[in-house]
């Protein structure tokens, strides 16, 4: 690591001459990249995995390495460059041995992420973006959520998450490790969990016991039956509890069309946010010859969302079984699991589960002795929220810049490699085995509303005593019940200011609508969307202008830049909010914010541009007076998360 430049001195205007090292890839890395090229149906898909392999070896991506990967994959140097510059996890500059990324997005931001960053800056004597003098630690403040919201605040160090850094003592412990070049929990297998590479000191012990206001439902979880387990369920354990029975039933007793019909009859709606009928989506796939693909969307990047992470890390085989059944239904022999780059541990565990399943004849050639073959590729992203949009995800898989495609054609007709493709969310696919095992009627009976039935994982995050994933029948509880009964009530007895029901993408639901039921219709009636059901509970006292600014920072950071209104407009919105935050707003700014939001929403190609405006529009709608007081003469700058 002697080639590391000191970015701190770069920032100080005292450039260190770049080390004159000629970077080349080692033979094993070259071989690994060649293996990636051979692995995929189209060589270009190996571009992103190849670049990640190169970065793993070198630590960053100097131009000559990018060119070397491009040559190995067989694309122009410029084509590799357009990929490298897009993803936030691919680095064109060297960084310290430990890259510490501090999440300041909702909910980490108001749960202490900002304070955590300040503490680290002080203790390490560097600012955001700088590297310690010994080249050990680079500090990076990121507006991008990393999916550790239930253990907020958190940091990501290289491949690993360090979570639940709630107290100054936790941070001191982290700093002590960092100064020695170590990551907490590294090396010594934790007693809690030898498979879990993420480190999170027990937090629940410190939280105040909830004042329960109601009884928990009599419901036995189906998707996450082993909570609070954090280790991966092995194949033997999974089979011992009836796992892969649904796949056996489907392959040995059902026709593909029957499987699709059962899923259609079950009213399973997509859990990624759009809530489209999964069975109908499968039914759109044309029957003709030629390859068809199943792509499972595990690019869980919406701030406040961490449900797919737990399914993949713990119930890996449940997801694999669902993928196998879905592939059988649509006639797919090669399926892809696209996992966001930050979820390194989830990727490792899924890969380990695939190896187990292949060895047991549950994946691979002639599954369970039938003529059905299935190969599952785990494909790891590299830091881009836009890849959660299904067509952008397909572009990313194809080794192109992940920008949404215009529809039609829909992926079911022309998706991955221009072939019929079904794209489903992890949780959607995890629902499939129980539907096949127990039938559509059984499934529809779960929950009060049979039009949108089944188990649903609610990601409860923010200012509650027990944040986490809660699996409940869809629509069985209200916001208030979830917060009070399951979340253990509000921390420090605080009042709820509002709840963001679908990460930061859906309009905020104010405190007076907390009795709305948590299903698609109920949340819609409360003026918002259930989406992926990632609830961020915001307490009284959080400054709404700061919250909106932080949310817009996320969308500005994550806009792919394809559509003019999103690329330019979201940046503009964020600049206006920053100006208001700095105490420099003027009376016309509220109208300007609303007008610009209207110029973005509905005028862009994908839904993400629309989402970007809801933090502004909804917070102005419900908390206009806070904006107005920020705009008053000499209101002064907003310097933290609290209201004045």
């Amino acid at each position, binding site marked *: 690591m002697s080639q590391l430049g000191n970015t701190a001195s770069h920032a100080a205007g005292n450039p260190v001459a770049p080390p004159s090292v000629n970077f080349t890839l080692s033979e094993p890395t070259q071989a690994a990249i060649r293996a990636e090229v051979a692995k995929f149906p189209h060589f270009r898909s190996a571009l992103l995995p190849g670049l990640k392999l190169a970065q793993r070896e070198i630590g960053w991506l100097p131009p000559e390495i990018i060119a070397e990967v491009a040559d190995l994959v067989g694309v122009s140097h410029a084509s590799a460059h357009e990929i490298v510059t897009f993803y936030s996890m691919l680095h064109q500059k060297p960084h310290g041995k430990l890259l510490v990324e501090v999440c300041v997005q909702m909910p980490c931001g108001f749960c202490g992420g900002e304070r955590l960053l300040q503490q680290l800056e002080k203790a390490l004597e560097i600012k955001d973006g700088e590297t310690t003098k010994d080249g050990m630690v680079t500090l990076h403040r990121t507006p991008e959520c990393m999916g550790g919201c239930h253990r907020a605040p958190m940091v990501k160090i290289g491949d690993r998450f360090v979570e639940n850094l709630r107290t100054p003592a936790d941070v001191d412990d982290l700093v002590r490790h960092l100064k020695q070049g170590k990551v907490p929990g590294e090396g010594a297998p934790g007693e809690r969990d030898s498979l879990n590479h993420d480190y999170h000191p027990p937090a629940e012990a410190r939280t105040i016991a909830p004042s329960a206001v109601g009884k928990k439902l009599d419901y036995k979880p189906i998707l996450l039956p082993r909570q609070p387990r954090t280790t991966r369920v092995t194949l033997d354990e999974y089979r011992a509890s009836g796992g892969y029975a649904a796949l056996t039933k489907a392959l040995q007793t059902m026709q593909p069309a029957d499987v699709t019909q059962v899923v259609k009859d079950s009213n399973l709606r997509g859990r990624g946010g759009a809530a489209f009928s999964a069975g109908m989506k499968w039914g759109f796939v044309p029957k003709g010859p030629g390859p068809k693909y199943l792509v499972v969307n595990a690019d869980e990047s919406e701030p406040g969302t961490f449900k797919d992470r737990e399914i993949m890390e713990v119930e890996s085989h449940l997801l694999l079984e669902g993928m196998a059944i879905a592939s059988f239904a649509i006639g797919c022999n090669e399926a892809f699991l696209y996992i966001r780059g930050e979820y390194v541990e989830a990727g490792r565990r899924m890969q380990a589960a695939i190896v187990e399943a292949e060895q047991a004849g549950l994946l691979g050639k002639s599954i369970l002795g039938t003529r059905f073959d299935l190969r599952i590729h785990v494909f790891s992203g590299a830091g881009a929220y836009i890849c959660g949009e299904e067509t952008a995800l397909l572009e990313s898989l194809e080794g192109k810049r992940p920008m949404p495609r*215009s529809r039609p054609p829909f992926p079911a007709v022309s998706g991955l490699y221009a072939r019929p493709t079904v794209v489903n969310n992890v949780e959607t696919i995890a629902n499939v085995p129980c539907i096949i095992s127990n039938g559509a009627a059984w499934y529809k009976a779960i929950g009060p509303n049979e039009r949108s039935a089944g188990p649903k994982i609610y990601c409860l995050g923010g200012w509650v005593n027990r944040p986490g994933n809660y699996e409940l029948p869809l629509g069985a509880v209200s916001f208030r019940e979830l917060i009070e009964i399951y979340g253990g009530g509000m921390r420090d007895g605080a009042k709820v200011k509002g709840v963001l029901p679908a990460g930061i993408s859906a309009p905020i639901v104010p405190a007076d609508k907390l009795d709305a039921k948590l299903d698609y219709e109920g949340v819609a009636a409360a003026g918002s969307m259930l989406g992926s059901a990632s609830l961020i509970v915001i307490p009284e006292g959080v400054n709404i202008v700061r919250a909106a600014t932080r949310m817009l920072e996320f969308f500005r950071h994550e806009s792919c*830049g394809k559509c003019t209104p999103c690329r330019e407009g979201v940046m503009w919105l964020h600049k206006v909010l920053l100006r208001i935050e700095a105490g420099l707003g003027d009376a016309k700014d509220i109208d300007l914010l609303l007008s610009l939001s209207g110029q973005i929403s509905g005028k862009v*190609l994908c839904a993400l541009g629309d989402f970007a405006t809801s933090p502004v529009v909804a917070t102005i709608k419900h908390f206009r007076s806070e904006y107005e007081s920020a705009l008053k003469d000499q209101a002064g700058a907003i310097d933290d998360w609290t209201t004045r």
Partner: protein
Amino acid sequence: MSDLVHLTINGHKVSVQKGTLLVEAARQASVEIPVFCYHPKLKPVGACRMCLVEIDKIPRLQTACTTPVAEGMVCNSAAPNAIAGQNAVIEMLLANHPLDCPICDKGGECPLQDNTFRFGLGTSRMQEAKRHKDKAFELSSKIVLDKERCIMCYRCTRFQTEIAGDSALVALERGEDSEIGTADGEAFDSPFSGNTIELCPVGALTSRFYRFRARPWDISKTPSVCAGCSVGCNVALHARDGAILRVLSRDNPAIDDGWLCDKGRFETLPPLTHPAHVSGSTASKRPMEPMLRRDGALVPATWNDAIARAVELLRGESLGGKSLGGRAAILAAPTLTNEAVVALDRHLRPLLPQSTIACAGDVHTPWLLQGKISELARCTKIVNVGLDPWSELPVLALWQRKALERGGVIVAVSERNGLWRDTAAWLRADAKQLAATLRELLQALAGGSASESTSAPVAAAARKLQHDGPGALLLGVAAARDASVLELARQLATRLGSNGTGGVCGAPALAPNARGIQEQAPGLAKQSALGAIDALLTLGPVETTSPGRRIVATWTSVPDTPDIEVVLPLAHPYEQTGTWTNLDGHVQKLGRSGFSVRQALPDHVLLAHLCRALGGEPPIDASAVRSPLDAHRGSLVRPPMTPA
């Protein structure tokens, strides 16, 4: 008629072909829908969002550039909602645009200006600081990029990927940081890069040669034909104050489909002579007026004196005892117009019976091209033998790439192959190996692929060529001089079905009017040794080392060597009228642009003067000259100049 779709656009009823995009249907209904990213020759991308329109029964505004027409569709681009959308996009595009129109090359011919006037509000609410980027980033020795002006329409990058196929220019970064560029430290290196300047809808991509030289309203435009090679791409010559400053494409769907190569665009212009354009040291020594050698020095003369002296020399008079046999020779450059060929061959030759009259350079081919080059797009298999169209006849390479879209294959049997990305098989063979490789390929195609002597690459190439449908075989003119290669190539063409309907075959010569010269005067095209001569007249830029007195008629600089007796200023092909015949037999008119050398004479006029001075009958008028071209008269009809 069943393929027609009926719809209403802004109240106009229109019937268009099924599959037409709404934006094109609107053009047919004389409704202008503003666009930036849309270009009829590129695939729609829907990025800029300028073409937002309202469509009945669809709640969201739609982009007309990505929406195919549907029966009964009612579309309104002038609905208040649509106009608000268009206003919004303009405001967003201009939010960070530098608005430096007064110093921008594009000012006056800028779609961003035009659309702002017609579809924008003319005001901006942006009070934040604009984004600053490189203003004069040198992408290559030909192109300068202004990153601030760029509106990210992706026309240039799509051209390089879809049309040229080399992905030499790409989009970098994401969101607000998006910009176009290449790999770090690499130039924008493509033989077609100049097309991106024309495609750019703003002043972001500018020509280094044209930059700051003129404004659109200073320019006079003349339709003509490119002097770069025998493809004969149609061009518009743009001149200011008599100096030709740039060459733009002039879409001819039968010849160039709207594209030019960089050689034609940047390297065919006549040398600049005006002091405003060239500084003293780099001033061309292009002859500005006739000159004679008197008392050992070249001095200005009248045209009458110069012609008289030239005739004396050609007749072998006034040579005194220095005569080498009284023979003279005339060598013409292969840019000679058909009119000049007739004058030279039929009018001048009888007047100088002793003389050798020939064309210099590769103008003769033993195998004229059969079929039209536009038919290459429909060929299912194309074989290039000893020819690299990418570098030798670049626009022909683009025609070949169009065949790929329809599933065609390209096979190269050559030493160089610029189309390597797109060739299904490349059998590397230098001039000496061509015959053997062709023989092997023919055997493999004849079913002899089982024979042991067939190498694996040849067998693979033969398999790729097993397609029904028309084929093409293009042979390099140098390779065609080898009789055995020529014969084998003819056999291969027959086997590929290139001789039938729709096929293309032949060995095109590379010089601009090679085919015209060969068709009008086969004798001129044949090379012959000059032998001992007393005097030599060269027409145009001709390299020669012949002994004897020289009469030089040219537009290039003339060295001051004592053998040059007479210098005659000749018009550059872009400065004269006349016709050229391109490689597939289209006879096309040259246009006269530029008058910086007022004394320069067109080639056929100069030859007419010489005829008269030699006592012969000069060709009387253009129609008499062109009578031999009657067979091709139909192709003289050109599409009119259309505004860009």
